């Protein structure tokens, strides 16, 4: 996966959650429970799943945008996870052993 694609996915995760929250809220109040729109309670505003989904997406965007920028400017070595590097090295070592045995 290219670093641009990684950065894009990281940056878009929060907005995607917010969009899902908006869709959930529109479905709830626009389709499934249209009559309840006039009877909103404070508890519904604070604990409504769609609202919390939007809030989660917003918080995620705030944290992830700097990380997306760091990823976009990182080298390929930095983007590999430490265990991936270890397993790649192990794999290379095993291949060398097989080739030496031939």
């Amino acid at each position, binding site marked *: *996966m290219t670093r641009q694609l*990684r950065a894009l*996915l*990281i940056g878009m*995760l*929060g907005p995607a*959650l917010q969009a899902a929250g908006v869709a959930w809220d529109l479905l*709830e109040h626009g389709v499934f429970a249209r009559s*309840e729109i006039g009877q*909103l*309670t*404070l*508890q*519904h*505003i*604070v*604990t*409504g*799943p769609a609202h*919390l*989904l939007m*809030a*989660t997406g917003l*918080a*995620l965007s705030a*944290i*992830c945008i700097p*990380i997306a920028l*760091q*990823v976009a400017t*990182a080298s390929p*070595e*930095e*983007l*590999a*996870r*430490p*265990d*991936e590097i270890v397993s790649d090295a192990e794999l290379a070592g095993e291949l060398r052993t097989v080739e030496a045995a031939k």
Partner: protein
Amino acid sequence: MLTIEVGDVLEAAGRLPMHGDTTGGALPGHPFFGAGFLFVGSLMVVELLAGSVWSRAYWRRMLWPGALLTAGAGMLIVSYVQPGSKSLHLTLAMLLLLGGYTEGQYRLGKISRASADAFAIPVLIVGGFVIGPMHATGNLMSSTLAQTHLLVGVVAWMLAGVKLMRVRFGPTLALEYSFASGVMMLGLSLLLVQQFHGAH
């Protein structure tokens, strides 16, 4: 130009009626735990995408155990505040706190992944039973609330399954993504529970 006074907004919010529902007036726990797990699961996906860039900050590396410990402390508060299901909430709190401790020990390099998983897998299975079949009140065939509670339990068992596959086949990127997405799903399933809790 539209201007919104913060005081007016707070006053308007204060005028809204509070809902008396199944939690005896206290705020329900499911949506906040759901949002928390969704948040942390999303960050676990970001951790996998970001590679070593994620580990540049120490707090990011300790996020997962920290989240589990915070969830455990939150569950302790829930078991104290909410009048019903105290023993179930207390059991979940203990499982979350112990899970957070072992994950923290692993991330600090004090125990191996296998040791942490040896604890995490039974905890996820037991936790799935506690939050699923044991916590689901009502008829499983007809009550949506009971079914959504069961869904949370099933997701916890799925997470245990992913961990078991990790033990069997070793760490792969696909399994890591599956676990992170599973934690996101756990959060979404808890939000679904709230949707059908009858609080609005």
